[in-house]
């Protein structure tokens, strides 16, 4: 069973990964992706909004799809919603597998779909102004890889 969570408050990626690793010590390899709010840009805050009836169910369906497609010992998906500042974690995906190729592919797949095909809306604040972010063409192109 994948472990999928929508985090409404900051989470600790290192603690998440440690717990995930401990729970899957029969797997030889763990691939993870951690996405954070970038520091050093003009953006001083980022907000993600979700739509409760669809967002978490969509993440769960995506995780189930990854688990059915690759041979995984475990899969973790944690995604923030709410207002974040530079350095804050946004998303953590980790896949444990006996063979590392499965773990790489599943993590990559989940990230591509979270980025372009999950129910989040993003806005950024810079210079005191909030601005909604439109989807990028690259995000859609990424989906055609699968």
């Amino acid at each position, binding site marked *: 069973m994948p472990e999928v969570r929508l985090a409404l408050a900051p989470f600790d990626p290192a603690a998440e990964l440690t717990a995930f690793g401990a729970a899957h010590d029969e797997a030889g390899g763990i691939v993870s992706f951690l*996405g954070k709010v970038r520091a050093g840009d003009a953006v001083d805050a980022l907000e*993600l*909004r979700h*739509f*409760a*009836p*669809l967002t978490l169910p969509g993440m769960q369906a995506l995780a189930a799809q990854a688990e059915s497609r690759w041979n995984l010992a475990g899969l973790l998906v944690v*995604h923030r919603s709410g207002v974040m500042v530079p350095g804050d974690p*946004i*998303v953590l995906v980790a896949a444990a597998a006996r063979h590392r190729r499965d773990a790489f592919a599943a993590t990559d797949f989940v*990230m591509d779909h*979270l*980025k*372009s*095909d*999950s*129910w*989040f*809306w*993003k*806005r950024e604040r810079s210079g005191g102004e909030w601005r*909604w*972010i*439109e*989807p*990028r063409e690259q*995000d859609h192109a990424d989906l055609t890889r699968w």
Partner: protein
Amino acid sequence: MARLLFLGRLEDLAGGPERALPLTAPTALADILAGLPADLAAALSGPRVRLARNGALVAPEGLVLAEGDELAFLPPVSGG
């Protein structure tokens, strides 16, 4: 009474995340949109805006809102 929810940039256009909609009878989506400001109605009708009634995705064709319904307008996502 029904509720309209506006996600993402649609919230700015609508002037807020939601709007209450007095209903005297089941009302077609087209009639609801006709009662809104023209620029908002146009944005809500965009081909890439998805609809969810009471939390479930629905098609706009033939959609009718009844008392107590909640209709969410979901523009293209930009998540992650």
